[in-house]
């Protein structure tokens, strides 16, 4: 087993000792099982090492050293489904470059280790990829806590890290870093796009249903501020611990509170379970529901009746824009037989982020991190190129990609099976920008950022 294939976590004791005493061995059994259960969510945290192998044969073959990219996507835990999709997006972009001969004449080699939707694992994986696998860039995150953890390690080494799909406003706010670039719309962008209209159309009394971690808190905070600024009232905020599967007590409480609007900042498997239980109670018909952002893998396969309310997204596979059909066809050709038959926003972000990073590296003519960072900062990306309605740009102050925000709801007249979203409107990134992030983000100076050439 090579280094890159070794599991990072030991959820069961490694040493198995014999014992003469039955009671002692039973005690060990219980202790061991307790350890195993407590150990980071049991077998759901299986480290996935990917089929790639990082080795040093290039040194002997006379070929150019490959450019190693560390994919820090979740393969288990709450965001396993989204992690898998953004990984496909990144791999597609890498494949396209490798088909053209790589970057700067160097083949790109991707390694993936499961970050388990766990911040501590994210730190460990990032440290390992940088120091042992010699990763030049790190790409991938859905969970804001994981992203923040990875970015701290990346900044320590000066390694460029792309936060592809984590959308807490803090990511490009107080937790921003010179080496981190955030590619998803954040909670404030989505709230800016949705809330005003919802107050007008649905009412002033709101309840916030908030996933109890950084993304949930910061997103709900942004929603609260916009609701209150527009004359609405937050009746109550209910915190939802991560990995909540039973929402019955929350739904009873909501019925007692009788709000006009329920604004959820709940993601991953939690939102899937919530949606199913809301539909069972037909509560989607009793009050208006807004989900700040609805990631495609979290809603795909749930069935049309479970897609209720209004939600934000950054991309949809049936946008009537040039290039979208080809983009979808390329996904289907490259990844045939996937359970998710068409790409969504998470894949799109993973692809666009990776492609832009590799383009910047090409344009910089070097892998020097500072040179690539400078290419990324302020970068303009045309709407046509990104398959969206408005031009996008990488904010040089916050390192967040400012892009089109779409409002969507369930499509009651689908053109085909997977046509489950109806896009209601699209917001120009200029109109929904997170202005607070600009004040909160203090990027490290170039001098304070370690420089390297991979």
């Amino acid at each position, binding site marked *: 087993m090579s280094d890159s294939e070794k599991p990072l976590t030991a959820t*069961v004791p490694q040493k198995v000792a014999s014992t003469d005493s039955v009671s002692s061995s*039973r005690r*060990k*059994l219980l202790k061991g099982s307790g350890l195993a259960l407590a150990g980071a969510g*049991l077998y*759901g945290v299986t480290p996935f090492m990917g089929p790639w192998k990082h080795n040093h044969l290039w040194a002997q073959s006379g070929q150019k050293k490959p450019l190693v990219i560390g994919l820090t996507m979740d393969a288990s835990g709450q965001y396993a489904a989204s992690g898998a999709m953004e990984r496909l997006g990144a791999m597609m972009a890498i494949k396209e470059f490798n088909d053209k001969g790589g970057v700067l004449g160097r083949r790109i080699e991707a390694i993936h280790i499961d970050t388990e939707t766990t911040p501590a694992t994210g730190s460990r994986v990032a440290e390992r990829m940088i120091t042992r696998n010699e990763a030049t860039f790190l790409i991938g995150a859905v969970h804001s806590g994981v992203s923040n953890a990875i970015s701290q390690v990346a900044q320590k080494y000066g390694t460029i890290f792309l936060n592809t799909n984590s959308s807490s406003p803090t990511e490009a706010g107080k937790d921003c870093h010179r080496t981190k670039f955030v590619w998803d719309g954040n909670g404030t962008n989505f709230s800016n796009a949705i809330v005003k209209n919802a107050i007008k159309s649905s009412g002033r009394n709101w309840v916030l249903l908030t996933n109890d971690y950084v993304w949930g808190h910061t997103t709900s905070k942004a929603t609260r501020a916009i609701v209150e600024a527009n004359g609405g009232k937050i009746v109550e905020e209910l915190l939802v611990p991560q990995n909540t*599967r*039973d929402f019955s007590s929350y739904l009873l409480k909501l019925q007692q509170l009788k709000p006009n609007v329920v604004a959820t900042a709940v993601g991953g498997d939690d939102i899937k379970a919530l949606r199913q239980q809301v539909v*069972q109670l037909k509560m989607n018909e009793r009050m208006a529901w807004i989900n700040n952002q609805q990631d495609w893998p979290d809603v795909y396969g*749930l069935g049309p009746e479970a897609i209720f309310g209004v939600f934000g997204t950054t991309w949809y596979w049936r946008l009537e824009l040039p290039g979208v059909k080809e983009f979808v066809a390329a996904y289907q050709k490259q990844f045939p037989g996937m359970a998710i038959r068409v790409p969504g926003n998470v894949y799109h972000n993973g692809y666009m982020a990776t492609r832009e990073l590799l383009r910047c590296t090409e344009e910089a003519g070097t892998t020097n991190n500072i040179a690539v960072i400078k290419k990324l900062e302020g970068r303009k990306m045309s709407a046509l190129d990104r398959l969206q309605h408005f031009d996008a740009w990488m904010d040089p102050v916050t390192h967040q990609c400012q892009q089109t925000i779409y409002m969507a709801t369930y499509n009651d007249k689908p053109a085909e099976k997977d046509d489950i979203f109806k896009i209601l409107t699209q917001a120009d990134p200029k109109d929904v920008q997170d202005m607070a992030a600009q004040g909160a983000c203090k990027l490290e100076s170039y001098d304070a950022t370690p420089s390297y050439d991979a």
Partner: protein
Amino acid sequence: MDFLSQLLPHLVNGVSLGLLFALIALGFMLIVGVMETINLAHGSLFALGMYFALFFVAPSLGWFPALQAWYMGLSIEVRYLVALILAPVFVGIFGMLLELCLRRTYGRDPLYGLLLTFGAALVIEEGIRVVWGSSEKQLALPQAISGAFLLGDLIYSKYRFFASGFAILMILLLWLFLQKTPYGAIIKAGAHDSEMVRALGINLSRLRLFVFGLGVALAAIAGVVMAPIWGIRPHVGVDAVVPAFLIIVLGGVGSLWGAVIAGLMVGMVVGLTGAYASEWSLMSMYLLFIAVVTFRSRGLFGKKSVLDV
């Protein structure tokens, strides 16, 4: 009065939730109690029950289109009933095969059994991914038990009441089986002193095979029942095995009523904190566990300390 009327729905919800937790823990309790094996594959087998149910409700029989058309022509009520019966049977048989593998670990350090079931959990979960894919699935339900009904000013889920009633039925059936049948007596005797059972001429291997199969079938039944509430995904088993473990230790290892009461306590605590201190709703079950085990290490109804099982 107003407070009480506000509280009452949450108490009812807590009981309902508790019954479902107890149902999830039953199979785990049986296997630990009789075989002293911590079955870490319990959650994956719970998930497998969900997927088998999915198969029996809406099978994909591409090679036999005529058979598929005939089967899908049956009413959803019939298909759901078939799923409720056959999914646990098939998963139970699978569990028996797993028990055959476990035999090599008997009499050895218990960690071997732990590792084997841990490995089995990984294999089952990945197997589910390979066969059914990793995306979310939904189980169709008969009309009679889906949807909601209005009671007072509040809406309740019909299915949740059905699931709670079903959990009560399963608990009673298991109790009757253990208390009133000769097989139950043998199982209890096996839990108490397996060597004596063997000395009396009872085939201990067969007993273990049967108990493991039954425990696994119960896990699958819980999976079928929980599928419409939690949703169906390959890693859903993790959500089941942790509370199941906690409940059997809290209730006392090997105690049926201990598991039921512990399940109800956990359900009540989770339900009430969900309503009044929502950020504590998951943590509350662990705090309850710590509080009880600190003062009563053998759990509520255990006959000996949890460390001396």
